[in-house]
C-alpha cells in the first residue's frame, strides 16, 4: 500500500498496536529480559518509521518488525563482549528459528500469556502493573498512558522504568506460574485489567465521566486473555462483566455530561451487541464450571440487570442474593455498600440503611463519596430529607469528577432543609477569618474544621453538633494517624469550641501520647527472632546488622563502598559525590563478625551489591558499579522490599517491618 508520509506514520502506529505484544513476547523468550525485549522492539519500530514512508508498508508488517527486532537482538549481543560465548549459541538459535517460523507462530500465544503474567506480577506496585501492561500488551506510548491516567508523561516513564528494573532484579522468570500459584497470579492479571477498565469507566478524576478508549483497551486485553486461557472461568467472568458494563456507556451520562443512575437509564440506549457478547462470555464461564469466583458473581449481577427490560422489572432479590455470595468471597466495604443498595431495593430503604450505617465507621470509606450518595438516596426514600442534604453535599465535596459534583450539589439543593441560628459552616468561616490567627494556624485549623464541616454538613446547626459526632469523625478520619497529628486536630477543635462558646466538642477525643519515631521500634523479642531467622543470605544479615547497630539510615549504609571501610575501627566514612559525610557509620561486634566474609577479596566499589548484573541497556553510573563483578549497587527500594518480605511473618500487622524501624531499635533497648 502506497501512502503519503504522515499517513504512513499513523499506519505504522496502527500496525504497532496490533503487533507489539507478540513481538515483545517472542523476543522476551529469546533474551530473557522484558526490558531489553521492549527496547529491541522499539528499535525495530524506529526502523519502520524510517523505511516504510519511502518504501511502503510491507505485505506482512508484523513479520517485518519481528525480523528487524531479531536482527537487532543479534547485533546487541555481538556488541556485548561479555556475552561472547552465549551469543554464539544465541545466533545459532536465531538461525534455526528462521526455519521454525511455523513453530514460532504456535508458541507465541503462550509467550503473550507469559508476558501478561510478568507485567502483572505481584512484586510490582499496582500502578506500575497497569502502566507496564498497557505499554507491553497494548502497545501504548508513555504519553498515551499518561493522558489516560491524567498523570505526567515523566511519571509514567519512571513507573515503567522502575517496573522493568524490579523484574530484572527479582529475576522474574518468563514462565507460566506452576499449578498451585496459577490462581493467585491469574487474579493479579484480572485485577490489573479491571483496574484499567474502571479507570476508563468511572473516570475517577477530570471532566469526562468516561474515557472510552481506556475501557476499550481493557476489553481488548480481557478478550485476548479469554482466548489464551479459555479454561479459566474467572477470565470469562471478567470479560462478561466488562462487556455488560461497557454496554451501558451511552446511557450512563446525560446531555450535559452528568451521570444517570442505572435505574434511570434509557435502556434502549444500551448496546445490545455488547450485552449479547457479555451473555456469551458468561456461558463460557458456566461451561468451564466450578464454584463461581468474584468476577463470575459480579458478572451474574450485571447479567441480571441487563435482562430487565425496565428498571421496575429488576430482580432485586436475586441481585441481593448474589451480593450475599459475593460478600463472602470479597468482604470489602465497597461490596458491602453495593449489597446495601440491593437490599434497599429488594426489602425497602430501611434494610439498606441498616447496612450502610455499619459502614460509616469504616476508615476505608472515609473519602468514598458513593457512601454518602447511597446514604443520601436511602434517607430521601425514607422521607428524611434534612439528613439527606448534608450527605449529598459531603459527596459533592469528595468527588473529583466535575459533572458528578454539579449533579450532587443540585440534589443537595433539592432536598428541603431546616436550619435555625448559626450553622457549623458559618461558625467555622468566622472563626478562621479572625485577624489574630497567623496564616499557618489558619491553614492548620482549616484542615481540621473543613473535615468536620464535610462529614457533619456545613448547614448543620452549630448547637446540634455533639462531642459524640466529633469523636466519630476523629476515629474514622484520623484514627490511624500518628499522635502529633491527632493532637493537632484535637487542639484545633478545642480552640474552636472555646471561641464559639459551646461545650468542648473534643470532649470525646482523648489526647494521645507522642512518640517521635513514627512506626514503633522493634522490641527485644522481635529482634531476637530476626537474628535467629534461618537461611538469611549473608548480604541481608550484614546490612540489617549494620543498620541496627549504627542506627544510621539504610540509604546511608547502602552508599558505603568497600574502600570506605575501616574494619578495625568498625566504622566507614561515607564519601558521597562532592561531599564527605561528617558522621561515620559505625557498628559493633555483630556486624564486625560478618563483614570480612561479605567483602571477600574485593577492594573497591559498593559494599552491598544487587543480585545480578544490570541489563546492558540500563547500566548505572560508574560509582554504583562493582569494578570486579560488574554488578550494581543494591537499591534502597530492593533492600526495603527484602526486609519487609523477610519479616512479614514476625510482624503482627502482616506487612513486614521497615529498615527505619530497625534503625531506631537499638536506641530503645
Amino acid at each position, binding site marked *: *500500500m502506497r501512502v503519503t508520509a504522515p499517513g504512513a506514520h*499513523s*499506519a505504522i*502506529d*496502527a*500496525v504497532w*498496536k*496490533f503487533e507489539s505484544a507478540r513481538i515483545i513476547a517472542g523476543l522476551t523468550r529469546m533474551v530473557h529480559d522484558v526490558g531489553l525485549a521492549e527496547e529491541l522492539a522499539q528499535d525495530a519500530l524506529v526502523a519502520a518509521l524510517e523505511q516504510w514512508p519511502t518504501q511502503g*508498508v510491507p*505485505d506482512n508488517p508484523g513479520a517485518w518488525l519481528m525480523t528487524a527486532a531479531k536482527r537487532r537482538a543479534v547485533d546487541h549481543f555481538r556488541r556485548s563482549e561479555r556475552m561472547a560465548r552465549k551469543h554464539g549459541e544465541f545466533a545459532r538459535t536465531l538461525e534455526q528459528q528462521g526455519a521454525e517460523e511455523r513453530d514460532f507462530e504456535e508458541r507465541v*500465544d503462550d509467550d503473550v500469556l507469559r508476558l501478561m503474567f510478568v507485567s502483572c506480577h505481584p512484586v510490582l506496585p499496582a500502578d506500575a502493573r497497569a502502566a507496564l501492561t498497557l505499554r507491553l500488551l497494548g502497545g501504548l506510548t508513555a504519553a498515551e498512558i499518561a493522558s489516560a491516567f491524567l498523570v505526567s508523561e515523566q511519571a509514567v516513564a519512571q513507573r515503567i522504568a522502575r517496573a522493568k528494573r524490579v523484574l530484572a532484579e527479582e529475576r522474574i522468570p518468563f514462565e507460566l506460574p506452576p499449578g498451585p500459584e496459577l490462581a493467585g497470579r491469574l487474579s493479579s492479571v484480572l485485577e490489573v485489567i479491571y483496574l484499567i477498565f474502571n479507570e476508563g469507566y468511572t473516570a475517577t478524576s477530570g471532566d469526562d465521566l468516561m474515557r472510552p*478508549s481506556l475501557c*476499550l*483497551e481493557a*476489553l*481488548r*486485553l*480481557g*478478550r*485476548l486473555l479469554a*482466548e*489464551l486461557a479459555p479454561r479459566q472461568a474467572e477470565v470469562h467472568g471478567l470479560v462478561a462483566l466488562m462487556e455488560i458494563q461497557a454496554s451501558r456507556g451511552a446511557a450512563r451520562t446525560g446531555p450535559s455530561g452528568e451521570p444517570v443512575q442505572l435505574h434511570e437509564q434509557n435502556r434502549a440506549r444500551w448496546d445490545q*451487541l455488547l450485552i449479547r*457478547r457479555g451473555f456469551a462470555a458468561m456461558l463460557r464461564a458456566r461451561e468451564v464450571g466450578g464454584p463461581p469466583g468474584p468476577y463470575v458473581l459480579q458478572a451474574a449481577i450485571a447479567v441480571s440487570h441487563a435482562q430487565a427490560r425496565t428498571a421496575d422489572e429488576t430482580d432485586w432479590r436475586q441481585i441481593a442474593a448474589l451480593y450475599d455470595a459475593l460478600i463472602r468471597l470479597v468482604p470489602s466495604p465497597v461490596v458491602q455498600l453495593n449489597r446495601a443498595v440491593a437490599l434497599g431495593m429488594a426489602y425497602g430503604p430501611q434494610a439498606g440503611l441498616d447496612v450502610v450505617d455499619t459502614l460509616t465507621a469504616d476508615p476505608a470509606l472515609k473519602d468514598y463519596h458513593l457512601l454518602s450518595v447511597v446514604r443520601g438516596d436511602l434517607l430521601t426514600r425514607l422521607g428524611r430529607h434534612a439528613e439527606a442534604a448534608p450527605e449529598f453535599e459531603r459527596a459533592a465535596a469528595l468527588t473529583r469528577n466535575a459533572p458528578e459534583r454539579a449533579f450532587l450539589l443540585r440534589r443537595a439543593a433539592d432536598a428541603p432543609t431546616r436550619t435555625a441560628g448559626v450553622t457549623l459552616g458559618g461558625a467555622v468561616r468566622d472563626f478562621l477569618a479572625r485577624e489574630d490567627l497567623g496564616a499557618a494556624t489558619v491553614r492548620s485549623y482549616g484542615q481540621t474544621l473543613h473535615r468536620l464541616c464535610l462529614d457533619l454538613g456545613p448547614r448543620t446547626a452549630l448547637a446540634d453538633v455533639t462531642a459524640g459526632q466529633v469523636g466519630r469523625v476523629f476515629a474514622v478520619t484520623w484514627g490511624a494517624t500518628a499522635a502529633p497529628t491527632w493532637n493537632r486536630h484535637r487542639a484545633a477543635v478545642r480552640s474552636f469550641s472555646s471561641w464559639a462558646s459551646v461545650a468542648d466538642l473534643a470532649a470525646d477525643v482523648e489526647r494521645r501520647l507522642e512518640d517521635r519515631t513514627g512506626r514503633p521500634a522493634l522490641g527485644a523479642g522481635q529482634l531476637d527472632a530476626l537474628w535467629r531467622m534461618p537461611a538469611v543470605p549473608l548480604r541481608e544479615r550484614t546490612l540489617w546488622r549494620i543498620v541496627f547497630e549504627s542506627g544510621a539510615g539504610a540509604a546511608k549504609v547502602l552508599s558505603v563502598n568497600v574502600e570506605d571501610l575501616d574494619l578495625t575501627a568498625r566504622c566507614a566514612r561515607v564519601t558521597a559525590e562532592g561531599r564527605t559525610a561528617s558522621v561515620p557509620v559505625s557498628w559493633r561486634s555483630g556486624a564486625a563478625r560478618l563483614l570480612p566474609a561479605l567483602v571477600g577479596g574485593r577492594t573497591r566499589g559498593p559494599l552491598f551489591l544487587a543480585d545480578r548484573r544490570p541489563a546492558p541497556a540500563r547500566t548505572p553510573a560508574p560509582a554504583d558499579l562493582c569494578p570486579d563483578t560488574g554488578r550494581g549497587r543494591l537499591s534502597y527500594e530492593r533492600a526495603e522490599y527484602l526486609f519487609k518480605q523477610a519479616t512479614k511473618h514476625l510482624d503482627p500487622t502482616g506487612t513486614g517491618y521497615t529498615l527505619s524501624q530497625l534503625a531506631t531499635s537499638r536506641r530503645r533497648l
Partner: protein
Amino acid sequence: MRFLLTSTSDKSHDEALFAEMGKFVEELTKTGVLLATGGMELGGSFITSAGGEITVTDGPFTEAKEAVGGYALIEVQSKEEAMELSRRFLKIIGDGETLMRQLF
C-alpha cells in the same frame, strides 16, 4: 470507534480462501477488535422512499458471477487501525473493494 466494513471480491470462494479467512478471523477475535463478521449476499433489495412512496428494487447489482461478499463489525481506537485491518482483509480476498464506514 466502530466501523462496518463491507467487502466484495472477484476471487472465487475456494477452500484455500476459506481456510485463510478462518485464520484471519481467529486472529482478529484474539486481538479483541472483531465484534461480528459473516458472509453477505451481493444482491439484496434497494428500498427508496420518494414523495412518501416506497419502491423496492431487487439485486443483483454487480455483474461478477462468482463474487464473494462479507462484512465485519470492528471496534478499534482509530481510523488508522480500521484501515490497517481493511488492508489485511483485502490481502486475503484479493482484488475487490471494501467500503469502510464509521458507526456512531
